[in-house]
């Protein structure tokens, strides 16, 4: 059943899809707001990076699951 671990690892990469949508949304919204009120934009840069980092973490959890499935699965 070793092969199924790799199938699972591939499926775990679907987490990237969600993270990509989320990160894209964050930067799109930031640009949207920044274009409307450019003078307020620099003050929100920290919030932008914080939101980006927190969203990206969810994609990275998928990566962690892929790594566990390949290198440290109980059945492997």
């Amino acid at each position: 059943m070793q092969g199924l671990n790799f199938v699972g690892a591939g499926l775990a990469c679907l987490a990237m899809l969600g993270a990509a949508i989320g990160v894209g949304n964050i930067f799109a919204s930031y640009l949207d707001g920044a274009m409307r009120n450019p003078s307020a934009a620099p003050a929100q840069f920290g919030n932008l990076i914080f939101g980006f980092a927190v969203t990206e973490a969810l994609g990275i959890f998928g990566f962690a699951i892929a790594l566990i499935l390949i290198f440290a699965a109980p059945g492997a």
Partner: protein
Amino acid sequence: MMVSTDPMHQFKIGKLFDLKLGDLDISFTTSALWMVIGVLLLIGFLALATSKTSTVPGRMQSLAEIWYGFIAGIVKDVNHAPGKPFVPLVFSLFSFIFIANLIGMFPYFLTTTSHIVVTGFMALFTISLVIVVGVMKKGFGFLKIFVPSGVPFVLLLIVTPIEIISFLSRPISLGMRLFANMLGGHVALKVFAGFVPSLAVALGGIGMLMGGVLVMPLIVGVTALEFLVAFLQAYVFAMLTCVYLNDALGEAH
């Protein structure tokens, strides 16, 4: 003919000399060597930049001032006045991660931050510090971070477990983020670079030319992106440290 283009080979850690402490293997590794080099570079640069301070700063001094002012600015923005004692800590974390990431950008140099044992330890240290500072400042009141104020009791039954899980996942996500970004970026670089020998083997001289013309701009672009990531991840780590410290320092939310 097979060309070995194993993208994981670059992360291999070798032992420089053996050391044993009882049953513990504390050998001096290449990873430790690169961390020592990074720290020495940092200390050397900052000592040189601040050796001859003047009111009108020279080039070196203003670089060091901008660098320090950047971190002090983050801490001031996020933590306000109570964060002041933690500026040196955040500055050290940022500088260490940044210099380690930059060293990793050079070919044949080891990226120490692409090993989870390094990043994971820094993340655990940060979260432990938050807990220690929080308990010292607020005692049992620190537990209030799990119980947001102004939430109806029925909702609290759901919100509190979520807050606890989110708190517990912080060290994991903090360490994993830096590790995964550095690992992923360097693997991508090596995979793209591996296109050149693969093309050359498949097509001979034309392949080598095509690899050079087509792949080289791609690698240059990805390398530029990696420099951005090297800075951004150090910045994110410093920023999240401040945000998490705010739980211990700031008002209950």
